């Protein structure tokens, strides 16, 4: 019985916390004055270039593999 009571209390507390968190996050969005927009992406340049280079190398290697294979066949 005590176990059930404790479980119920914990469950209620968790539900309450979720509800409060939900209302809080909803309040962040439901405002007439939003925050400033993030209107730049230039800082991602290095990451983008590295990912592009690695992807390009893999594609070239894959194409070379298949070309080599079909030449052998």
């Amino acid at each position, binding site marked *: 019985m005590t176990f059930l009571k404790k479980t119920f209390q914990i469950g209620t507390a968790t539900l309450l916390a979720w509800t409060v968190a939900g209302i809080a996050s909803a309040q962040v969005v439901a405002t007439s004055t939003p925050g400033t927009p993030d*209107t730049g*992406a230039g*800082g991602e*340049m290095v990451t983008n270039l590295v990912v592009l280079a690695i*992807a*390009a190398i893999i*594609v070239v290697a894959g194409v070379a593999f298949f070309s080599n294979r079909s030449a052998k066949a």
Partner: protein
Amino acid sequence: MASAVRHSMRGRLLTGMVGLVTLAAAGVFLFVLVHAVWYAPEEEGAAVAPPSSSGSSTPTVIASAKDVPVRLSIPSINVDTNIQDVGIGKTGNMAVPSNYTDVGWYRYGTLPGVVGSAVIDGHVDNGFGLDAVFKHISDLKPGDDIYLQAQSGEELHFVVEDVETYAAADVPLQELFTRADKARLNLITCAGQWEPDQDAYDHRTVVYAVLA
């Protein structure tokens, strides 16, 4: 015989794996390329109530489709572009247009030409650091002309009043979004240095303009 079959199976498995990895890499390449130079949509948060109960004096204007701004022109910095309507992003910030060449009008704010502050944002650069539509708005000076065209074809003429650059945390949001003394148009974009922790620039440039 069994060895030949095993060898053939291994060969097919290798071919399949190389094929899959090559296709995945091609997909990643295309995705990053498109995202960096052309299409970078931002997921928007829930819709918001118009500003009526916040205590501000901004009038609530319900925009009909014909009043919605569709084109922005700033001759002095060679900007002539489409206007998307944007809301609020997942983080509670004003959302941004889905590409680097259009600009975004804040649809929960003021309609351009009406007393209040209409806000338009645009990117300063793309994912390769190349110029985007609002790269040069910091070059605008008081007296420069800004033209907005509505869906109906009506054209509104605004004149730049002031250009300010603020630290991102210090942007006067009330002044930007809810000042309601005149028919205002405020343009905003990023400036300053890239903050890797924030994944954003650390300053914002705001151009304040008024209806001529």
